[in-house]
């Protein structure tokens, strides 16, 4: 019988501990410290690497034998499935938002632009890595073609897939948008991008983690702020699960 109060005391202490932890995690101060730490890493990375510091590129024989598909690996939308079957003949890549000359490019037009090929490592936030050869157009080239306006501060990628019922999207700042290795890839290891890896286009932002590498990209949007987009976090995972917007750590 003497065991009962002690047990409830222990349970009470555990609950108190858990709620104290929850309070620490949710408190505004803690969130501000987390944000400052994240910003600090970004500022330090930029200071050390410069705006154009390149991520490591690999030799063809260093590629992983396959490239894992993660997150959405298929898109349910019937128009998408129809286009997938036809090699994306009628699929348009839009460049819009704060641009003077909005674009809607076909896959053939995108392939006709200057291309960059890079063999890079993809690092998932969970910890695993895969290496593949990507080919595509530099995002900076597309933004110049569309005459992006000076007030644009972020580039938002709109995706065709719904992940957990929500449209996937991501965003980067103008430094990463104009990084030489930031490309809209349409080929992986010399083949058209497979569906599981984001056909017809996925982003490559080589100094950040996998959740930034938006797949099934339909539109590239220049904005001053992403407060009005989604829940304002700047990306699906940022909104849905509180992931760090700067994914370079």
């Amino acid at each position, binding site marked *: 019988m003497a065991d009962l109060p002690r047990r409830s005391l222990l349970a009470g202490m555990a609950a108190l501990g858990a709620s104290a932890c929850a309070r620490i995690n949710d408190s505004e101060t803690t969130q501000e410290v987390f944000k400052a730490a994240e910003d600090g890493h970004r500022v330090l990375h930029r200071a050390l690497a410069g705006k154009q510091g390149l991520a490591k590129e690999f030799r063809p024989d260093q590629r992983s034998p396959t490239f894992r598909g993660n997150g959405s690996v298929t898109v349910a939308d019937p128009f998408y499935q129809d286009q997938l079957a036809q090699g994306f003949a009628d699929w348009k890549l839009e460049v819009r938002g704060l641009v003077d000359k909005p674009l809607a490019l076909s896959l053939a037009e995108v392939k006709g632009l200057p291309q960059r090929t890079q063999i890079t490592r993809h690092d998932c936030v969970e910890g*695993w890595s895969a290496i593949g050869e990507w080919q595509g157009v530099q995002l900076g080239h597309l933004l110049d073609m569309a005459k992006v306006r000076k007030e644009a501060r972020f580039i938002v990628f709109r995706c065709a897939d719904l992940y957990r019922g929500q449209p996937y999207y991501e965003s980067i700042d103008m430094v990463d948008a104009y990084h030489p290795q930031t490309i809209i890839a349409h080929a992986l290891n010399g083949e058209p991008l497979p569906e599981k890896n984001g056909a017809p286009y996925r982003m490559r932002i080589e100094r950040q983690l996998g959740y930034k590498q938006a797949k099934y990209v339909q539109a590239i949007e220049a904005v001053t702020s992403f407060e009005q987009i989604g829940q304002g976090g700047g990306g699906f995972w940022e909104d849905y699960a509180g992931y760090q917007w700067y*994914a370079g750590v």
Partner: protein
Amino acid sequence: MTKHALSTRLWHWVNAIAIIVLFMSGLNISNAHRHLYWGHYGFDPADAWLHVIRFPGWATIPGHYNLALARDWHITMAWPFGIGVLFIWIAMLWNGHFRRDLMTAPRDWTPGAVIASIKAHSGAGAGAHHGYNPVQKILYGGVFGVLLPLMLLSGLAISPGSGGYAPWLVDLFAGRQSARSLHFIAAWGIFGFFVIHILLAVTDWRLILEMVTGGKRDDRDPPPPPQPENLPAAQEGVPAHG
């Protein structure tokens, strides 16, 4: 003269908090992909050299699986940890703590020196010795010289952002997945040191108090090495090796 310099004490407690949070949030992050690989890439559990257990909630920060929050804690505490490692190395080189207490000589690595240190540490009057014994020098030297820098550098190498400023870093570890594996191994090395360190510290609470107050250093010179003519063993009639 205090036994522990202010820089040592400050770093000790800041680092203690940092490594506890880093370790426990690291176990939460480990739960996200419980397989370790060697080389530049690795995603297929069939290629893993180690399948890691799922760490229970009581061992992780936060106490349930939450990769975003665990990374928030990890990324935040990486700052005091990383700056602290640089700070304590500079302070130790500056104030002579490294040269005096941690730097080993070849004679410290002999089995005889190790046995003598263990005997001195476990027998009566343990702790009364002057300075650090060879085992302490080797253990602390291993932590400062190997484990802490390894944690810091492998942590930086795992971050994709480091590719932009130090692409050589990931090559130093022969790949990001190797760096990740070494990060995991070194974390458990530090955990092992932590357990031994606490067990030995709680045998004498004054040691813990001294790490707060600084304590008083025993400034008496160590007893001079006995000269052959003074050695009792050299005296007539006393066997050299009893």
